[in-house]
């Protein structure tokens, strides 16, 4: 059979993010795959050199719309190492709390996307509905759903009140119940298992060799987790498991993520139960003396590394960011080879490459040109009205 080469992407290669996958096909089977990235290069590292550390923090937060807190925490830890600053315990605990809430939202988001990629849109809607619980927690703590801006060099910007803690615990209970349902689904539902088992194989030694990180590595039985290996913040004092799976396929990655949700709930309960007292920020000079630091953080997608070099001024000499997805793309090429074209979307999505999410309030102009803000209730009411005109009544659906 003659070979045919087709490009997947750069627009929407199975997910809403630019990347190009050049697939060599023999019939339905993929016999070769090359990955081409860089379409989203925004020059953030260069821009950081022209801005102060505090300004950089806001720029770094925008590296990713999903793991924004991961990047700022990593950057802060590198800068704090360079400045030789000790971060107060309470601030470290709050960083862990937000970090784990972020992991929950990210894993639930992935679960939904994975469901969508395999044609299981009910799962997509369930997972994203439940994800709202954790988004509400994040909004309650920080005022924001996406870029929480909780970190600052030397600590965090907002404290946690006992009322907030109680509300988070309430929602975590709810989420835990839902997660148990997803675990049942992932491990027992035959149609779901049939779609992910044996797909996108990445043997343990390949994952190791190619430097895979995060759930991609752990789903191939490589127990690599920065929270355990290089315990930062207060992770050393917390009790949690590193979840691995020997399945080495998309099922393994699914398994790791759903069980990691349970570990995150465990961590959040521990943090809130014994939130250390004290200040939430240490004083850091605006100008950081010459030095360097490597930030090392377990983001939802895996190991995140930031390198910061200071030169005595208020601006860094160099900021280097290595987001987890980059470390996993070498593995994607391997996973695609030997598989079927129809599996390419879920194989690519299974490493959970990043893309931004949007806000839920929209600002529109009414007929007279005035600004009109629509919140969730307004949108719901309008939707019900719209369908009632067409003879459908949805008003009794909660």
């Amino acid at each position, binding site marked *: 059979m003659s070979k045919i080469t087709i490009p997947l992407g750069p627009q929407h290669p199975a997910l809403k993010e630019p990347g190009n996958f050049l697939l060599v096909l023999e019939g339905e089977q993929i016999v070769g795959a090359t990955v081409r990235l860089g379409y989203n290069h925004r020059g953030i590292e260069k821009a950081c050199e022209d801005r102060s550390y505090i300004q950089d923090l806001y720029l770094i937060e925008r590296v990713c719309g999903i793991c924004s807190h991961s990047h700022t925490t990593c950057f802060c830890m590198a800068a704090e190492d360079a400045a030789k600053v000790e971060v107060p315990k309470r601030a470290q605990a709050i960083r862990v709390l937000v970090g784990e809430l972020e992991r929950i939202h990210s894993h639930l988001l992935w679960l939904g996307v994975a469901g969508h990629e395999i044609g299981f849109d009910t799962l997509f809607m369930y997972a994203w509905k439940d994800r709202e619980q954790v988004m509400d927690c994040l909004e309650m703590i920080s005022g924001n759903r996406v870029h929480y801006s909780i970190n600052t060099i030397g600590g965090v910007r907002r404290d946690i009140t006992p009322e907030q803690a109680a509300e988070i615990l309430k929602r975590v209970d709810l989420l835990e119940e839902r997660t148990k349902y997803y675990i049942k689904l992932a491990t027992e539902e035959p149609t779901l298992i049939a779609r992910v088992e044996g797909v996108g194989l990445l043997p343990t030694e390949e994952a190791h*060799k190619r430097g*895979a990180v995060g759930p991609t590595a752990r789903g191939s039985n490589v127990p690599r987790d920065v929270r355990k*290996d290089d315990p930062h913040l207060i992770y050393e004092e917390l009790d949690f498991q590193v979840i691995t799976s020997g399945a080495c396929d998309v099922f393994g990655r699914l398994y790791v993520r759903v069980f990691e949700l349970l570990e995150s709930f465990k961590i959040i309960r521990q943090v809130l139960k014994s939130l250390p007292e004290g200040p939430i920020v240490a004083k850091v000079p605006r100008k950081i003396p010459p030095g360097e*630091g490597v930030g090392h953080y377990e983001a939802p997608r895996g190991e995140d590394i930031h*390198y910061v070099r200071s030169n005595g001024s208020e601006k860094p000499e160099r900021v280097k960011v290595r987001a987890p997805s980059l470390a996993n793309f070498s593995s994607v090429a391997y996973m695609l080879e030997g598989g079927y074209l129809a599996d390419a979307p879920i194989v690519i999505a299974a490493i959970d490459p990043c893309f931004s999410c949007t806000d839920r309030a929209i600002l529109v102009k009414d007929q007279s040109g005035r600004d009109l803000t629509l919140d969730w209730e307004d949108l719901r009411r309008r939707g019900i009205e719209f369908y009632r005109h067409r003879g459908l009544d949805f008003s009794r659906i909660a």
Partner: protein
Amino acid sequence: MAGVRTEEEIKEILEKRFGTILSNWVIQRKRRIYVDVPRENLVEVVGFARRELGFDHLGTITGLDGGEYLEFLYHLSNQGLLLSLRTKAPVSDPRVQTILHLFPGAEPYERELEDMLGAKVEGLPPGRHYPLPDDWPQGQHPLKKNWKVSDAYPAEV
């Protein structure tokens, strides 16, 4: 048992094997080691750290423009312990050997050094740019300190 070695023990083993080739040791804190390696010994030291000391994961490679020279930091990891090997190459001769045979995942990191700083990674197979676009003007390297956006996009600034 490689994982249980302390920072001091790792330094001792590397010093015993390579002697004064390695200089400017800094044990910044727990799990953070920095050391200077001459460019011609880099691959040998990386290989030794991988084989004998359990540094089986390459975090990333950081490149810096130091004016007269380019500086590269290879962040190797052994179960979370980060060993940053620092090497320098003069701007007039910015060559460095590839470590792809030791860490196949290093390809994007090495291409980045070529694209962003103008390093020449010897042994890196020919391939497309990363992260810059295919039609990027030759000889322009954004992370050089004297590079301005207007160098590449004169019409837009």
